[in-house]
C-alpha cells in the first residue's frame, strides 16, 4: 500500500525561505539548507523547493543553493521556479534535484512538458497549477488557471489544463488553490477532488493547511496522493511526525 506523502515546501526568495499570504507579504522563514536538513531528520517524505525570485540572471545562484540543499537530504527533492528550457532543467537535475516543477513556462510552451518527459522521464516532471474558483460561492462554475503569483488569469480551465498536462507527459500535478493559500482554513477539497478524479497521475494538494484534519480531508475526500504545506511546518505549529501520527490514527497509510 502506497503511503500518503507529507511534503514541506520551501518558498525561496533571494536565498531565504519566505512565506507569503495569498502570494504576497513575504515573511522570512529561515535558511533553505538548514530547513531542508531539519525536514529530512523529521521524517518528511519529500522536499519541495520553489524559487519565487525566478529572475533568469540569478540561475547560477539558485543552482548552487539547490546543490547545497540536495547534499543534505536523503528524500526526494523537487525544485521549481523560473525553469524555462530543457537546459535549465538539466542543470537543476544535475545539481541534485529529483523532479522539477513547471508552471508558467508550461502554459506558455506546453511542448516543454513533452520535451522534459522524453528527455528525463515523466517521473521527474511535475506540472504546478495555481487555480482559483470562477465564483467563490458556486463551485459548479469551476476553476481557472493563474500565473505570476496569482495575479494573472490565463483564461484556461484548470481541469482541462490538468488533463492536457497529463497527456503531454506530466508525472504529477502540484495543485495550489489560490483561494485557500495562506488562509489556514483548509485545502480546497472540491478543487482537489475534481482534479484528482480527472487524471490518473498523483495530485499533490497545496494551499490552506491550518489544522490536522485539513491534511486528512485532502488525502481522503480530496483524493490527493500527497499534501504540501509551508508555513505550518516552518514556524513549528505542527511537526511532520505529529501530522503522521494523527493520520495513522485515522487509518491513513503513512510512512
Amino acid at each position, binding site marked *: 500500500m502506497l503511503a500518503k506523502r507529507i511534503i514541506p515546501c520551501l518558498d525561496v526568495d533571494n536565498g531565504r525561505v519566505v512565506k507569503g499570504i495569498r502570494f504576497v507579504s513575504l515573511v522570512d522563514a529561515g535558511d533553505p539548507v538548514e530547513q531542508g536538513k531539519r525536514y529530512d531528520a523529521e521524517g518528511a517524505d519529500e522536499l519541495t523547493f520553489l524559487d519565487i525570485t525566478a529572475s533568469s540572471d540569478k540561475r547560477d545562484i539558485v543552482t548552487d543553493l539547490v546543490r547545497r540543499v540536495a547534499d543534505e537530504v*536523503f528524500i526526494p527533492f523537487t525544485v521549481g521556479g523560473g525553469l524555462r528550457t530543457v537546459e535549465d532543467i538539466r542543470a537543476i537535475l544535475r545539481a*541534485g534535484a529529483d523532479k522539477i516543477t513547471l508552471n508558467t513556462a508550461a502554459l506558455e510552451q506546453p511542448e516543454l512538458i513533452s520535451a522534459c518527459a522524453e528527455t528525463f522521464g515523466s*517521473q521527474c516532471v511535475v506540472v504546478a497549477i495555481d487555480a482559483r474558483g470562477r465564483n467563490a460561492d458556486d463551485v459548479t462554475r469551476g476553476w481557472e488557471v493563474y500565473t505570476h503569483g496569482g495575479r494573472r488569469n490565463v483564461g484556461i480551465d484548470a481541469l482541462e489544463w490538468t488533463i492536457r498536462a497529463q497527456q503531454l507527459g506530466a508525472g504529477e500535478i502540484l495543485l495550489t488553490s489560490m483561494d485557500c493559500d495562506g488562509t489556514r482554513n483548509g485545502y480546497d477539497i472540491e478543487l482537489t477532488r475534481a482534479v484528482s478524479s480527472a487524471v490518473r497521475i498523483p495530485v499533490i494538494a497545496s494551499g490552506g493547511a491550518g489544522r490536522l484534519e485539513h491534511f486528512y480531508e485532502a488525502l481522503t475526500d480530496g483524493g490527493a496522493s500527497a499534501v504540501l504545506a509551508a508555513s505550518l511546518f516552518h514556524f513549528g505549529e505542527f511537526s511532520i511526525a505529529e501530522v503522521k501520527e494523527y493520520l495513522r490514527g485515522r487509518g491513513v497509510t503513512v510512512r
Partner: protein
Amino acid sequence: MSQIAIIDYGVGNLRSVEKAFAATGCEAVVSGDERVLREAQRLVLPGVGAFGACMKALSERRFDRLVRERVKDGTPLLGVCVGMQLLFEESDEFGSTPGLGLLRGRVKRFNGELVVPHVGWNRVYQRGPHELFADVGDESFFYFVHSYYCEPEDESVAAGETDYGVRYASVVAHKNICGVQFHPEKSQAAGLRLLRNFARLN
C-alpha cells in the same frame, strides 16, 4: 582503486547515490572512465527515464559489455531503479527493447487501471533473510518512482516484493547480481542501510 564505482553513462542524478554511500561511510565514485569501472571492487548501475534510452547510452559507451564481463568475474553489481530493469532480458517499453540479460525475465508495464508512475513510499516484503536486508526491518518503506516492473523467470531471484496492483519483485538478488526497484539513496535510513549492506556483500 575505488571500492564502489557508480557507472556514469550520461543519464540521471548520480550525485545523490554517491553522497548516500558517503553518508554510510563507504567510498564511492561516479565514473564514466572504463579503467575506473574495471578496477572498482563493486559496481552500481543507476538508471532513470526510458529503458531504451538507458540501454542505448550504455551500449554506446560499450559499458554493456563491461558490466557483463565484470559480473562474470564475480564483481558485486547493484542495479538501481531502471538500472535494476536493465539486468533483465527485455522490456515491453515501446514494443520490445533488449536489456543486459544478466537475469532471466522481462520488464512489464503496470496495468492501465493504476495510477502510473508508481510514485511514493511503499513497503518491501522480504521473502527471506538476505545480507542486503541486514538491520532493515521487514515491511520497511522505500521510495519508488517507476512505470514498469521486473518479472523474473525464476521466482527465487526475488528477495523482496512490493504490492502495487500486483505483487512484484522490488529487490532481486542472484549470486553477485542485485537490483532494487526503489531509490535507496532517497529512502532515508532504510535505504542508507541497504547501500551499506551492498558495500559489505561478500
